[in-house]
């Protein structure tokens, strides 16, 4: 009896310990969200979202940062989504699961996913700006400095490399949910492999491609390290008009306001407001991706 009781107590303790850990993690998330919502909610207004910073960024809004973030993720998606989708198609439709090529591509994708974001920043600087950009200047502009410096194009391309694995993984998962029978039926009707992919497989996995895009956008909107020295600017009086302009971005705005502005305490409400905007943006994107992915998985089990 006593031995059993001891066992029970031990069991309750251990289960309690694991439950506590789960609760602590949930509590951390809740506390972070609450603190940022409480700190930032009074700052959010239509004016804050649509006006420029004023008086050395101590007043005014964050419109250029929102605009820059939007532009960044759009250019990034245009580059990352097609390449990611094609890679995923190759991995699921063409490559043999056990072939060395497929294995090394998968390994490369996973490596891309774990490389620190700051390394992408260095790569963007060393490759896009110092190598490609300078070559372009030399070839087209006779050495005049235009592309060989940080700008929104290079920042977006750098970011697209970072988000490429996100797209690949989501699209691959969706492609696998398209039933084998559909493919076989299409092929049996005389369609070529490419026609089957284009007309049957891709339409069947469009929601997966969307999930991938949304997740990539959410990741791209929040990352700061890759664009620290590939195009983000502290303050700009005008919106970026061309691909060779620098731009403001929400995450970088938070960083500079919180660590490098002259009067951190005075601008605290703006910082919390900006953080809330960024957090809300990534939350909305993530939740829609979670819902979409949930639907895909449900479809798979049916």
């Amino acid at each position, binding site marked *: 009896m006593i031995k059993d009781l001891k066992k029970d107590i031990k069991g309750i303790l251990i289960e309690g310990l694991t*439950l506590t850990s789960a609760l602590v*993690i949930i509590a951390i998330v809740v506390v*972070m969200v609450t603190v940022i919502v409480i700190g930032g909610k009074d700052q959010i207004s239509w004016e804050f979202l649509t006006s420029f910073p004023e008086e050395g960024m101590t007043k005014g809004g964050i419109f250029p940062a929102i605009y820059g973030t939007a532009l960044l993720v759009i250019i990034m998606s245009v580059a990352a989504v097609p390449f990611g989708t094609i*890679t995923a198609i190759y991995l699921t439709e063409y490559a043999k699961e056990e072939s060395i090529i497929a294995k090394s*591509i998968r390994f490369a994708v996973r490596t891309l996913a774990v490389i620190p974001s700051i390394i992408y920043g260095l790569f963007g600087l060393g490759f896009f700006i110092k190598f490609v950009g300078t070559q372009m200047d030399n070839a087209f502009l006779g050495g005049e400095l235009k592309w060989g410096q940080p700008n929104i194009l290079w920042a977006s391309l750098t970011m697209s490399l970072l988000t490429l694995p996100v797209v690949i993984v989501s699209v691959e998962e969706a492609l696998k949910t398209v039933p084998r029978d559909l493919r076989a039926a299409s092929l049996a009707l005389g369609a070529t492999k490419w026609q089957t992919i284009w007309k049957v497989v891709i339409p069947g996995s469009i929601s997966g491609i969307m999930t991938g895009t949304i997740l990539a956008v959410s990741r791209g909107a929040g990352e700061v390290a890759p664009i620290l020295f590939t195009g983000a600017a502290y303050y700009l009086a005008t919106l970026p008009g061309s691909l060779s302009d620098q731009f403001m971005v929400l995450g970088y705005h938070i960083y500079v306001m919180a660590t490098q502005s002259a009067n951190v305490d005075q601008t605290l409400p703006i910082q919390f407001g900006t953080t809330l905007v960024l957090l809300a943006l990534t939350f909305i994107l993530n939740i829609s991706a979670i819902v979409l992915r949930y639907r895909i998985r449900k479809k798979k089990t049916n």
Partner: protein
Amino acid sequence: MAEKIIKSVAFLCITIIVLIFFFVFRESVPIFASAKTHEHTEATASSPEVQETYGEVTDQSSAPLVQETYGEVTDQSSEVQETYGEVVDSTASKSADETYTVSAGSGYDENQSALNTLMSKDWYPVSEKPRYGLFAIILGTFKITIISILFAAPLAILAALYSASFAGKRTKEIIKPTIELLAGFPSVVIGFFALMVLATFLQDIFNYDTRLNSFVGGIAMGIAAIPIIFTIAEDALTAVPKTYNEASLALGASKWQTAFFVILPAATPGIFAAILLGIGRVFGETMIALMATGNAAQMGLNPFESVRTLAATIGAEMAEVVFGDTHYNVLFLIGSMLFIFTFVINAVAEFYVKGKLMKRIQGK
């Protein structure tokens, strides 16, 4: 035709990794090149002509020229390599000279360059006598990694065990999306939270002097690492075959005994991989390190002192550095180190786990 195009696009990922390695490493090569040219210099140093040439190179090492040189790299790589060496060399020799006068007797002589200061503990890249000692920074990075893994790994693994073994369907539907949301938190937001709220909160509890230190930074980075560790650990725990669970229960073991003594040990390789990838995440984390660690390169082991990490050093200094300068090359060298470290961690996690897990589950 379509297949060929698709295949070549798929190779892009591999190409990108090779390019990243090549271009990050390329920018750090001049440090090593300068050491070689130095020997050459000594041999011919007595000739005044050489000295003169060197002077010229130094004079022209202003930004526009260096940028032009960059563009030519592919066309005349060998020649540029040489120019590189010399440009860096002249600055490096200057630095070595000056360092010599300061720390006479500590083994410095004119032959030493930036390469030799790398192992020292002083990181003063922008002083008049620049020193690029990485020792304190590497120590700081490891210190903060250990703190954050000690915080995040037990929490995430126990929570994963709860989710995999004890939780009902309903609870799972709360835990997993919450973790996914946490994974979606931009690191700059976590950094901001740590800087504004967590730092003050922890200081009130523990009463230490420096508000921003490796403890605060470690906890904040731990928060960022929790989702990764949790997800991989949970995958490993649920991948343990159901028969293990059933056999254990049938033998009369209780639920917690099964979870703790059967399922957890069976999933050890996966959990090991989870911790490794968590380490990789923390090791390269930039924004949290920039915002919450105080960014002072100090040597001590006290967790309540400010530290500076490798990634934060790149993030903080790259924007202000002169392109092609030794400082610039050293920052890229740090980048190469980070890249190699995470690459190795990922490779170990991948191959070790696949091998071990397969063996265990198939019972060989």
